């Protein structure tokens, strides 16, 4: 166990000893601060309250964290292949599964770390600048639900984190199956942004299987406030969505591990 922690420590070293990681982190810290300051200076009057701004910033930060995590995760696997370092990594007394798992854990720790930083910074800056009047005042309609307190924010983060796990797991699979970080990053980010459009297209199809399409379940926040999910024409429950996501999660990981364990290393 102690020895296994060292594997994760190694992966962390490879993530945090890079300048790029700290530049990413500075984005996560600076963006909410700057946005809130701009809102304040642009005449954030007494009507402005923290919660809508917190949601707006969180929404944006989450997209960013997903992108960053996908970049880090594909570098942690595909990057080892393209640099050729995978050879010296795999000739150690550890199974390939153990090594891949250490990479997966380090990636998720990275996502969690960034999410916590995003949460703390957004909360602190907005509460400091605007205080926490619980007056629902939606900002530009981007965040449609009336989020008015800690509970809502935490729920929002939790739902978004589930989405993050799925997309990153998908990127991780692309990265270990195709050993190409470009493909992994491109497809995962495509996933993230095309998700809404695809959801809309599929929603128009009046078929039963639509409910099992991954894209339909990537935005769990539509269940907040008693919503019936992302497709109005196909009401679903949160439990159902989580079930479908769990199935995809299992399939993605199965593919990652199977391919990574069997693959000839020719890098």
């Amino acid at each position, binding site marked *: 166990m102690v*020895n296994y922690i060292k594997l994760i420590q190694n992966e962390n070293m490879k993530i945090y*000893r890079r300048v790029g990681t700290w530049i990413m982190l500075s984005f996560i810290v600076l963006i909410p601060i700057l946005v809130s300051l701009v809102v304040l200076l642009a005449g954030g009057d007494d009507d402005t309250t923290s919660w809508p701004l917190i949601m707006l910033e969180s929404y944006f930060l989450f997209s960013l964290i997903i992108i960053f995590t996908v970049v880090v995760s594909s570098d942690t696997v595909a990057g080892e292949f393209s*640099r050729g*370092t995978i050879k010296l990594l795999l*000739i150690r*007394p550890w199974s390939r599964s153990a090594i891949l798992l250490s990479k997966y854990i380090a990636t998720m720790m990275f996502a969690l770390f960034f999410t916590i930083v995003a949460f703390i910074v957004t909360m602190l800056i907005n509460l400091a600048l605007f205080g926490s009047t619980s007056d629902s005042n939606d900002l530009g309609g981007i965040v449609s639900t009336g989020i008015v307190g800690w509970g809502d924010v935490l729920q929002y983060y939790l739902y978004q984190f589930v989405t993050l796990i799925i997309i990153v797991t998908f990127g991780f699979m692309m990265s270990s199956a195709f050993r190409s970080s470009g493909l992994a990053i491109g497809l995962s980010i495509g996933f993230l942004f095309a998700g809404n459009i695809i959801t809309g297209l599929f929603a128009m199809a009046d078929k039963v299987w639509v409910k099992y399409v991954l894209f339909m379940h990537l935005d769990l926040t539509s269940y907040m406030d008693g919503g019936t999910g992302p497709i109005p024409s196909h009401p679903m429950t949160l439990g159902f969505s989580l079930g479908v996501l769990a199935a995809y999660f299992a399939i993605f990981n199965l593919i990652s591990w199977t391919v990574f364990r069997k693959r*000839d290393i020719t890098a």
Partner: protein
Amino acid sequence: MSQAPIVRLQDVTKVIGKRTIIDRVSFEVRPGEVFGFLGPNGSGKTTTIRMMVGLMGLTSGDIHIGGHSIRTDFPKAIVQVGAIVENPEMYKFLTGYQNLLHYARMNSSITKERIQEAIELVGLQDRIHDKVKKYSLGMRQRLGVAQAIMHRPKLLVLDEPTNGLDPAGIRELRDYLRLLARDEGTAVVVSSHMLSEMELMCDRVAILQKGQIIDVRSIRGESGVGSKPTLEEVQFDVDHPDAALGILEGQGSGRISDGLLTLSSDRAGIAAINRRLVEAGINIYGIRVKTKSLEDQFLEMTGSETIG
């Protein structure tokens, strides 16, 4: 020679697609032996080494290291191996020391003192805290050797380790490998293009061609220097090569090349030919025995570009 081999390859075969890249390769390396792997480009040296360290699967056959199969008992087999496969790729954004620490963490037997020892052995102590991206090829190669020996492996597998090293570095590596073999009983497998290098470094050399071992020979033969009963090429510098050739008619295949009478013979044969030529009144200005270097033999066996 009675010790159990450290590594044993049995009919190792690798088929990729429809091509047989490695074809029933078998050999053993014993403790304290330096074993060379010689072959032209694309003959399968790296592929064999990749299979030995578990990076590539075997289509058939098996490889045992210290009695453990690399296929079924990977961690127990690989823990006894240190290796460099092709280029020593390291994490460029880390320092040399962090790279070594990275590998040391994966093997519980490596202490901080041992890392330091390995660094000094390869002579990198002055630059070990520099980022690897600032290293020269030779320095990376040295770092590669350090990570390979840190855990005192029983088997050291080095794919073209002299690549990028300066003459002093090559010499140090050679001396160090011999020392490891002699004092610690490490079995060493090296592949190299530097044929003359192999002669200096190895006890035995396997010659690989198109995925098959076509010959295994001892470099430090048991027979001792100069007493080999093999036929050598001998050149006689004489005043009338044509006449000499006539005199020696029926004494095997002689020919004239570059104005020299050239034939193959052993030690006793040379003396006899010399006597006959002198008796026939031919003046002999010189006799040269062309000892074939491993390189010549190697090229002869694997064929040069003109033949191949």
